[in-house]
């Protein structure tokens, strides 16, 4: 049954108990006075018991079960009615039975009440017969009425008709009202269910949609990146070819000059220094060109031996002019010189992105610390900077495509998301720890 209904019934029976305890108090006071006047007798004990029950019910009404209260209250009033009828015939307080009926109707419906009034009628007839036959007599006059069948029948008719009015009138109205309420409630529950279902479906769809949007964004980011890398690849390949040729002139010229000086036995220290400078310049330029090439090579397979230290050094070379004098790079490379199987070009992108983020986050002076470790079959790379760090709110979003806090032109918001997906493509993982104004640490683990 519905909780609201139970609460209403609970309230009704509690009210009845309290009112009863209050009003039954008056006759009980009379009973006490009578006891003082004529002494202790059975009637007083019986009054005390009844009153005690009512008082207990009203005091402990919140702890006693509804059914217990209903039965107890109905019984109390019925017993009062029967006792009065027995003692005083129809002068007695037989009408208390109406309260019993009311209680039962409200709490158990009109059918139970009908049985109840039927039972009471039997008791009534039983007592009536005893009065009519003279076995029972009232102490007070007039005696005549109590032995008259007509009087008993008349009272019974009044009793029954009033009972039926209560039962069939109120009771049925009340019962059907309950049926209507319950129906309404059922509809409401169903509506609620539908609503929940609908909400669930909406949220499922929303999640789906969000996932799709996320996927779309990622795909878009990857496409953009691929396109960028493709054009960069074409560009660097062309540029490096064009630069390699003049570098070839320089190196060829250098080689020729070295040979020439040797043949002519020129052993001037200045010449050696000059020649060495040419050689150093060519070496560095050619390293940069080949680093660029590595970075933008357009290979899609993941079957190359990637030397992590070499790749990181290449990337550091590429950003070298951004670091000069301002940022110190500390390398804690492991002695094991970790290699992984993967895509060299893409691994270059990973470290170039991470180093770029690191140096861009350092406003004035600072340092970037690179640590590599190998443990079992994993290769761990940590890149820490002493930059401005990432805001707590932004931290979960930094790997989302197109998320950036950089000024326009400084970043597209693709770097970390691409970096993350490349690391994932290599079967690895990337985590970022950051504290504002202290710095950021990027931790990469890749199987090797």
């Amino acid at each position: 049954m519905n909780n609201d209904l139970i609460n209403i019934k609970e309230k009704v029976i509690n009210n009845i108990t309290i009112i009863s305890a209050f009003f039954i108090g008056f006759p009980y006071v009379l009973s006490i006075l009578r006891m003082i006047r004529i002494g202790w007798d059975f009637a007083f004990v019986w009054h005390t018991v009844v009153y005690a029950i009512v008082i207990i019910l009203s005091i402990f009404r919140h702890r006693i079960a509804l059914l217990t209260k209903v039965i107890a209250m109905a019984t109390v009033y019925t017993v009062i009615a029967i006792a009065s009828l027995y003692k005083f015939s129809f002068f007695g307080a037989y009408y208390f039975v109406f309260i019993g009926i009311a209680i039962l109707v409200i709490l158990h419906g009109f059918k139970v009440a009908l049985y109840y009034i039927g039972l009471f009628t039997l008791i009534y007839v039983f007592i009536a017969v005893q009065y009519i036959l003279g076995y029972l007599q009232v102490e007070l006059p007039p005696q005549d009425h109590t032995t008259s069948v007509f009087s008993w029948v008349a009272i019974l008719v009044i009793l029954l008709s009033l009972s039926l009015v209560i039962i069939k009138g109120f009771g049925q109205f009340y019962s059907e009202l309950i049926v209507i309420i319950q129906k309404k409630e059922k509809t409401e529950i169903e509506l609620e269910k539908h609503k929940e279902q609908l909400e669930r479906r909406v949220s499922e769809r929303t999640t789906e949609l969000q996932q799709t949007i996320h996927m779309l964004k990622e795909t878009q980011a990857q496409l953009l990146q691929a396109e960028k890398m493709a054009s960069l690849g074409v560009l660097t390949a062309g540029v490096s070819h064009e630069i390699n040729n003049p570098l070839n002139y320089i190196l060829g010229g250098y080689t020729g000059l070295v040979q020439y000086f040797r043949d002519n036995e020129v052993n001037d220290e200045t010449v050696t220094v000059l020649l060495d400078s040419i050689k150093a310049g060519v070496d560095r330029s050619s390293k940069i060109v080949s680093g660029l090439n590595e970075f933008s090579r357009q290979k899609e397979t993941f079957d190359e031996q990637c030397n992590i230290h070499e790749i990181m050094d290449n990337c550091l070379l590429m950003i070298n002019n951004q670091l000069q004098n301002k940022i110190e790079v500390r390398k804690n490379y492991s002695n094991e010189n970790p290699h992984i199987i993967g895509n060299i070009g893409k691994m270059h992108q990973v470290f170039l992105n991470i180093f770029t983020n690191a140096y861009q986050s350092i406003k004035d002076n600072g340092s970037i610390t690179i640590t590599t470790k190998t443990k079992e079959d994993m290769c761990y790379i940590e890149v820490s900077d002493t930059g401005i760090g990432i805001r707590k709110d932004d931290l979960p979003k930094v790997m989302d495509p197109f998320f950036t806090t950089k000024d326009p032109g400084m970043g597209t918001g693709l770097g970390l998301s691409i970096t993350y997906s490349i690391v994932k493509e290599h079967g690895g993982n990337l985590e970022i720890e950051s504290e504002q104004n202290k710095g950021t640490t990027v931790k990469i683990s890749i199987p090797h």
Partner: protein
Amino acid sequence: MDRPKVLYVDDEEINLLLFEINLRGKYHVLKAEDGLKGLEVIKKNPDIKVVVSDMKMPYLNGIEFITKAKELAPNVCYFILTGFEITDELQAALDKGLILNCFRKPFNMNVIDEELEKVI
């Protein structure tokens, strides 16, 4: 004893010049500015031991030139000298044995010298 003949094919004149200057002490360096001219040189000089070719050239690229040259002179050792990365085309040529090695520009004469010594 005559110096072994080496043909170098490159469309850049300075490269040809430098190659010759740096290796002429040990080798008789023949030069050609493109693949077609290179083929002519091979026809005229059947005693060429080694051919080194640039990759990006007019008319024929390095591999196309070497493929044709190999038909003319199958016993010559062929090398590529390129300013590009090792492309799939070059890798395939290496795998097939069409070329023995691939030098990168800017070229290190010592490395080339060592490699040539090995095959001559």
